[in-house]
């Protein structure tokens, strides 16, 4: 058990040990198990090329619909195989890579657009602020699914449309949060001094404002990873996200839908992967917020 190892026992402060832990409260759990859970999920994702026992598209028609290992199958396919004899474990591992890389890229685009607009709105105020905040309100008033449906109808399923949908969902949250912080920061003494010292707006934003909002941005971004993974999986499940034959978790669950009566494992394992990944990222996000940004703690 990770908690009882000497290293982790030492790292827990005596005060913290005395307080009764509520493991289900946000941030109320020790970091080590979360870290271990995340690492066991991230390593297969990053190295699926080498670690996965089979290629994601490697079919084996003689081993079609093999059950998982303790349900009548054997260790050659621990999670079983699908209709074409493809190894579910390997496909789930490759799926992890797509889920993580798409969320990272999508969140990055959303963060860059949203934070820049938030910086501009909060720092320059006036018309910029009014226009950008109106756009934020409108954007928050539109469910992401509408844009996803519209884009899918327009261009068909593609990486780009998923990234656009993700960025569209996220930018407004970042713009709003960053603006709120910048409004306070720009009134601080160090900004006034930088103005007196003759710094340009760009220099002030980059050297004095941005470093002070980075923490907030990082925490907010971490908390969005779970939402984005679920969104991407839902879109792929509906066939309006990442196109076939890329082994995304959403597509794999969709593939198993028709096989529920005979081969439950085809849908089960990719879905379980989504659940565990989102759960561990959410726990990690809560923990990170507690560490870096105790102000924004939820009750």
């Amino acid at each position, binding site marked *: 058990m990770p908690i009882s190892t000497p290293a982790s026992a030492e790292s827990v402060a005596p005060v913290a040990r005395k307080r*009764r832990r*509520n*493991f*289900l*409260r946000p941030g109320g759990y020790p970091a080590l198990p979360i870290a271990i859970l995340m690492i066991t999920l991230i390593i297969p994702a990053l190295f699926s090329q080498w670690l996965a026992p089979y290629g994601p598209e490697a079919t084996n028609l003689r081993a079609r619909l093999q059950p998982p290992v303790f349900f009548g199958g054997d260790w050659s396919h621990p999670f079983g195989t699908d209709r074409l004899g493809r190894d579910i474990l390997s496909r789930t591992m490759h799926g992890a890579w797509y889920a993580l890389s798409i969320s990272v890229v999508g969140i990055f685009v959303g963060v860059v657009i949203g934070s820049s607009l938030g910086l501009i709105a909060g720092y320059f105020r006036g018309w910029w602020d009014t226009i950008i905040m*109106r756009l934020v*309100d*409108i954007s928050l*008033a*539109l*469910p*992401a*699914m*509408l*844009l996803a*449906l*519209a884009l*899918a*109808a*327009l261009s068909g399923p593609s990486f780009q449309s998923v990234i656009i949908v993700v960025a569209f969902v996220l930018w407004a949250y970042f713009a709003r949060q960053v603006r709120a912080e910048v409004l306070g920061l720009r009134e601080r003494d160090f900004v006034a001094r930088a103005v007196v010292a003759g710094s340009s707006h760009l220099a002030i934003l980059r050297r004095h404002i941005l470093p002070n909002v980075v923490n907030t941005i990082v925490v907010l971004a971490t908390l969005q990873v*779970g939402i984005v993974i*679920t969104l991407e*999986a*839902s879109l792929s*499940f*509906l*066939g*309006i996200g990442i196109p076939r034959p890329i082994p995304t978790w*959403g597509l794999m*669950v969709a593939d*198993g*839908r028709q096989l*529920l*009566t005979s081969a*439950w494992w085809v*849908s*089960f394992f990719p*879905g379980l992967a*989504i*659940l565990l990944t*989102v*759960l561990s990222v*959410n*726990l990690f996000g809560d923990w990170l917020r507690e560490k870096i940004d105790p102000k924004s703690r*939820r*009750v």
Partner: protein
Amino acid sequence: MQRFFLVKLVESAIALWVITLIVFGLTHFSGNPVGALLPDDASPEQVAFLINKLGLDQPIHIQYLRFLGNAVQGDFGLSMKWPGQSAMDVVLSRLPATLTLGGMAMLISVVIAIPLGVASATRKGTIVDSFAQGIALIGQSMPSFWLGIILIWVFAVGLGMFPTSGSGTWAHLVLPAISIAWFQISALTRLTRSAMLEVLDAEYVKLARAKGVSEPIIVWKHALRNAAVVPLTYFGVLAGSVLTGSVVIETVFSWPGLGWTAIEAIKARDFPVVQSVVIVFAVIFILANLLVDLLYAYIDPRIR
């Protein structure tokens, strides 16, 4: 109050207008519809006639105004996948199914989440609290389509208690409604819990206790009434996420509502129907938010 009402109304109108821009952009950049509407051997005169009839030879702002004029009347053209029906008729005929499912999902989430949140707040730190928070934690991490499939596997395929898909009876409604409600339950439970914790600390609750008012009356009458404002504001978001959930869950359960129609229309590249669904969704969503804003202002006068 009137001024507040006007501001909200204008904001909603702008949001709707942005949607029409997106939907118009969709038609405009989705390529030339003439090719799809006419057979391959159409003569140049026929092509020119259709282009003229559809107004495709007009400048783009005129085209947009024409589109807007038609959109206001709910006219998005004829459906391609369901021939002989206008796109809006197809969509409106599916609306009741979605509203039933969404309403049921909302009902389930309120009936479960509010008591759970209250219980979790009044018994903070006990096993009840941990259970409620565990539900909330898992609910936020579980993809709804997968939950739907697991429910089908266990309760329809395995136990045979409910039909696997389709619609018609109340039994058909149970599994899809639970699948949509699950995520809302976790969010609402968390919100209710934190709102209740705040209110239970307030002076008037302490006063009521000092006066000797019984605990259930304090919790359910004094505290919950005040705490309910927070989950109520969330209702707008809830409506949006129920709509989103319905697209996914209707597809899982082949429930013949708007979401299922949208996905079928996209597969068939039936643009008029997709446009109509997007507009109808947007109108429902914006109306729900407007209603919540007004209700909120009515309940809590400080907002105005």
